[in-house]
């Protein structure tokens, strides 16, 4: 007489699926949101009466070495207008926010051509700044 071996069933525990799904969702949210310009070294200028800014379509930065970056990638000011136009595409007016992060020690020769390029691309310029401290006012 043959004895039948009891079958072992290996199943994935389903109670963890909710947690896994939630973590994956958050992971992709972070990936989608982060325009990776964290490597750019810059210090914001300070100004009174500034407000919260809406989400940007693109970010242009000028770092401590006065190099220009578009969404974290180095770019020359001559190419900036066309590259920005491509990023902004047919986005309707009012949603064409372009964040401009300029190092506080930059001079007009560095930031004015960048502002002109943003204007040429039809971007809505937002200077990213820090609120000026009360003690300095």
């Amino acid at each position: 007489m043959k004895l039948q071996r009891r079958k072992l069933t290996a199943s994935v525990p389903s109670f963890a699926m909710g947690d896994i799904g939630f973590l994956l969702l958050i992971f992709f949210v972070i990936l989608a949101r982060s325009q990776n310009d964290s490597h750019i070294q810059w210090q914001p200028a300070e100004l009174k009466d500034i407000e919260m800014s809406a989400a940007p379509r693109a970010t242009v930065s000028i770092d401590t070495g006065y190099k220009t970056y578009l969404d974290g990638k180095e770019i020359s000011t001559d190419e900036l207008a066309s590259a920005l136009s491509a990023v902004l595409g047919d986005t309707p007016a009012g949603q064409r926010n372009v964040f401009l992060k300029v190092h506080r020690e930059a001079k007009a020769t560095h930031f004015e051509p960048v502002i002109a390029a943003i204007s040429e691309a039809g971007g809505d310029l937002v200077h990213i700044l820090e609120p000026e401290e009360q003690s300095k006012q």
Partner: protein
Amino acid sequence: MKLKRGKMLVDPPACASSDIAFTLIIFFLVCAAVQPETGMSQALPKTESKSEKREQSQNIEVSITPSSIILNGSPLKIDEFKTRIASELKKKTREQDRIVVVKSAPDTPYPIWLNVSQAIDQAGGILTLELETEKTINVQ
């Protein structure tokens, strides 16, 4: 005589604590990533070459240098500039006359430029940059 009821010890399941910690880390990471940024929005007219514009000659002109701000030829400090530009722009009724042409010296620092442009915005002016372009001509 009262009989004391034995207390039941309920331990939270320890196997879930790593999941909870991980979820908390991600939660704070998301909070940090979506932290709103502060700034100053600025409306700029589209860039155009000098030959296309300037049929209107009544525009206010501002020159910025590292040491002074010059409004229609007279040098001013930033506080004086704020009041003067506001009074100048009050006289302008048509939108095309509210254009303020700003010309900066190459070594003008960003914070000074920002103060001037904020003063123009707050006074209701339309800031326009006048840039000098360099052209290289090869002579054979």
